[in-house]
Structure formats: C-alpha cells, structure tokens
C-alpha cells in the first residue's frame, strides 16, 4: 500500500490511464480545430468530438445534440441559471433552488437576486433530502425555473429528482439539476428524471479538468438559453469558443468507462463505503453519520466526531487526503453551510470529516483509514476538554462559554 492515500474523490478524481491514452493523440498529430470545415484536420477533430458527445449522451440517456460543452460544472451552473433567467424573463422572475446547492448555484442565484429576480431557497430535511412538496408549495405564477442538486457533494444525499421533475412538468416550469457528483457514479436518466437542464463535469468521473457539459433539452419542451459567452456560435450558439478537443475526447472516454463499469463499480464502492462507516462508527462512541443512511452516493461517508475539531483530525490523518466541514479548513469563519442546513450544530459541523471513495481505492486502504481514524480521534479526545467535561456528566449545551466570538 502506498501513502499518502487519496480519499477525497468528491473534490476531484485522477484521470484514468485509459482516458489519458485516448486524449494524447489529440494534443499532437490530431490537433485540428473541430470547426474547420474544409480540411481533414478539422474533420478528424469534429469526428472525435461527435463520438465523445455520443458517449456522454449515452451515459445520461440524452441525444448527443443536447450536450453543450463548457469549461466545467461551475460554468454549466452559471449558464443554466443566468441563461434561463435572461431568456424567460418576460415569462416570470422567480426561481426556486435549495439551501444545500453548491456555491456555483448559490452565488449565481445571489447575482440574479441583485439583478432583480426573486429566489426561494427551500430548506432540506434533517437527512439532507429536499422534500418535493416543499418545492411545490414554493411555486408561484412567476416561477420559471427550479434548480435542485442531484447528489450533494458533502453528504452524498441523493435527492428525489424524478418527483421534482414531475412537479415542474405539471406546472410548465423548467427543471435544472446539478448532477456533478452523480453522473458516472449512479444511473442518471434525464428522460426518466424529467430533467430539462443538467450540469456535470469530467474531472469528477476520472476525466480531465477544464471540461464539463450542460445538458439542454431539445424536445418536450425545447429549452432556449441566452449565451453568456458570445463569439463564433459554437455549441448551437449557446457557448462560443474553440472546442478543447483533447479534453472532450477524454470526457467521452471517461463517460464510456463509467457507463460500462457502473454496475460492478457501484457495488464494490458501496461495500467499501459501508465497511468504512461501520468500521469507524462501531469502534468510536458519539459519532454521527451526516446525510441519509441509504439514499446516498456509493462513495460518500460523512461523519461528525463529537469533541474533536475537524482540522486537527485532518492534521493527524496527514497521510490520508480527506476534507472537513470545519471552518478552519475553509476560507470563511463559518463551518459547512450544508451541515448547518441539516440542523447539525456548529460544534458537530466543526467536527465533521468527509471520506470520498473512488475507483482506485482498495480494501486495504479502507482498513488503514479506519484504523488511523480511530487512533487519532481517540488521541484527540484524550486531549479534549469537551470530552472530559462530557464524561464528568456536564451538559455542554448548558455551559455559558467565555470568549465566544
């Protein structure tokens, strides 16, 4: 087993060697511009892009013409929200989204609010799921778009998007989903789920960074979108700019591998996930699983360890790449807004660790991570005044703390 261990696959994934191999010729001998219509270099590039578009469309049950390439899911989220808001403004100025979206959605929604749109951020349940009924109740005659994350990047909770899609369709409202963490990991079907627009990205599914896609429905209904980047009219005018052919080829190959491996891979990861969760939680008291126990990505475990702070935990687990909801690990002073939206108290949000399993993690690594986590949590609890007080029977919630900031 090699150290350090990478177990932060919600942040990004390594490029699968097969994907890299497929990409390489498109940097050098097959370097053509896919928009060059009158020579073999261009045709070769265009054919490669077409093939990739098909591979990607096949993974989500879409038509290849419905795939718009972008630089990643952040851009796709921006394009979906701003593109729809601008295009459908005459129809209405209200957008519904959820409190556990990625920043790419939340910050775009904030910008739209500044531009005069009104946005409803619906809450989630304690298990992290969005209640479709709550979305339904938020609909007004002015609602033009509902945007709900498919699988959450911190807690891996999988939302009931098909039900939300049905509601949106009944009311003639467009439905966008940020499926960045879901595509390639669990079956995603834009038809069955009633999704009109969907964001995803290659680097979360063993493809390269810097390439993503926005699925834009062409039939029932035909979705129109105001572009954010104007220019040569690429991607049916929705996103101009010369296509990065090597990245697109890699994205296509990554999608193809995910589609083929998914049944076997998700089974393997689910088993590793459950082993990791149980291995840690049966050995340590006062640990809490954040998110839904079963409606969850096969690769996500998110646990709060009472009485120890997340960053110090990560420091002890320095040969394992993980992330924490602790404020100390982010630029802001606030701990994870996703955990807080679930009603997890600040102290437990500070104590959370996210484990993101991936294609290249092994059973041996999982066992090592369990062992190290138990060791470090135990060591830090011995050092924790909160643990000591709790063991003395003091109710920490009743203590009036000095120096709160």
């Amino acid at each position, binding site marked *: 087993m090699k150290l350090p261990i990478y177990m932060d696959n919600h942040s990004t994934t390594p490029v699968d060697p097969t994907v890299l191999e497929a990409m390489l010729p498109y940097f050098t001998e097959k370097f053509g511009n896919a928009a060059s219509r009158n020579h073999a270099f261009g045709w070769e590039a265009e054919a490669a892009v077409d093939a990739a578009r098909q591979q990607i469309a096949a993974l989500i049950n879409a038509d290849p013409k419905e795939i718009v390439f972008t630089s990643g899911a952040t851009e796709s989220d921006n394009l979906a929200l701003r593109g729809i808001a601008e295009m459908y403004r005459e129809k209405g100025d209200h957008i519904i989204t959820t409190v556990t979206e990625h920043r790419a959605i939340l910050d775009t929604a904030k910008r739209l609010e500044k531009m005069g749109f009104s946005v409803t951020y619906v809450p989630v349940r304690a298990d992290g799921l969005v209640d479709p009924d709550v979305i339904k109740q938020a609909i007004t005659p002015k609602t033009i778009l509902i945007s709900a994350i498919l699988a959450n990047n911190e807690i891996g909770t999988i939302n009931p998007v098909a039900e939300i899609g049905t509601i949106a369709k009944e009311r003639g409202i467009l439905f966008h989903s940020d499926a960045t963490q879901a595509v390639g990991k669990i079956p995603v079907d834009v038809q069955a789920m009633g999704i009109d627009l969907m964001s995803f990205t290659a680097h979360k599914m063993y493809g390269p960074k810097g390439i993503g896609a926005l699925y834009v429905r062409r039939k029932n209904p035909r979705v129109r979108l105001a572009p954010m980047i104007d220019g040569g009219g690429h991607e049916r005018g929705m996103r101009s700019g010369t296509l990065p052919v090597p990245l697109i080829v890699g994205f296509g190959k990554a999608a193809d591998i995910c589609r083929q491996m998914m049944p076997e891979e998700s089974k393997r990861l689910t088993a590793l996930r459950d082993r990791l969760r149980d291995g840690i939680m049966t050995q340590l008291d006062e640990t809490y699983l954040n998110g839904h126990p079963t409606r969850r990505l096969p690769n996500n475990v998110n646990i709060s360890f009472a009485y120890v*702070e997340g*960053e*110090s935990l990560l420091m002890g687990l320095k040969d394992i790449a993980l992330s924490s909801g602790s404020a100390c690990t982010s630029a802001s002073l606030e701990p994870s807004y996703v955990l807080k939206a679930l009603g997890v108290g600040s102290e437990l949000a500070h104590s959370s660790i996210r484990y993101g399993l991936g294609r290249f993690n092994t059973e041996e690594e999982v066992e090592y991570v369990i062992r190290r986590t138990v060791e470090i949590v135990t060591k830090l609890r011995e050092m*924790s005044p*909160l643990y000591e007080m709790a063991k003395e029977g003091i109710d920490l919630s009743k203590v009036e703390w*000095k120096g709160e900031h």
Partner: protein
Amino acid sequence: MAYSEKVIDHYNNPRNVGSLDKNDPGVGTGIVGAPECGDVMKLQIRVDEGVIVDAKFKTFGCGSAIASSSLATEWLKGRTVNEAMQIKNTDIVNELHLPPVKIHCSVLAEDAIKAALEDYRKKHGEQAGTREPAAMERKH
C-alpha cells in the same frame, strides 16, 4: 495550508496534556472559547509560593490551537504569577510562526493564561478552595 515545524512538533508531541484538580486551592483554571466557534482551551496552573510549578492543558481546536496551548504550558512553568501575566499572544505567534488566519489561536491561549491566573488570584483573594473555576460558575 502548510503548518510550521513547531506547530507540527507540538501537535505530534503535545507537552503537559492533562488536568489538575480544579478544587485544589493551589490550582488556577481557565477555560476559554466555545464549541460553536471550533475552539475551547482549558489551561491549569499549580502555584507554590508565587511560582508556577506545574501547568496542564486540554484543547478542542485546530492544530495551531493545540500548539499554542501546549507552548503556553511550557512557558508558564517556572514563572512567577506576575511574570506569567506578561506573556503576549504575539510572543506565541512569533514562536510558532502562525499565519494571520491562526492569530486568534494565540489570542485564545493568552486569554486562557489570563483566566487561569485570575482564577488562582480569586481563590486567594477570598477563601481558598471554595470556588468553582471562573468559566463554570456562570453555568445556568
């Protein structure tokens, strides 16, 4: 973020982790910070004839908070109560090479020192050994 070697050393080999009897008249206890903020430090001193003869800490917080309190216990031992009052958070920042985002850890450590000294003084201003540590007394 990369940690300084000194922070890593204190994190890996924390000095003086533990607790002293808070009801002992010779012991001063300071508990500062709050769990919601992600840091709580407990710092205790044992004073004998005006000199700090022992110091212990327990900290809930990031690596820099642990290192700051560990360092504080090292510095406290052997100092008189009056000398201990002179320890400044900036001394801790300089010793541990804390980056700007971690300065609050050193501030908390200074507060913990002050709170422990204050608790000790209170005990001796009044009947020794009859009071709870400062942070706990306002419990409701």
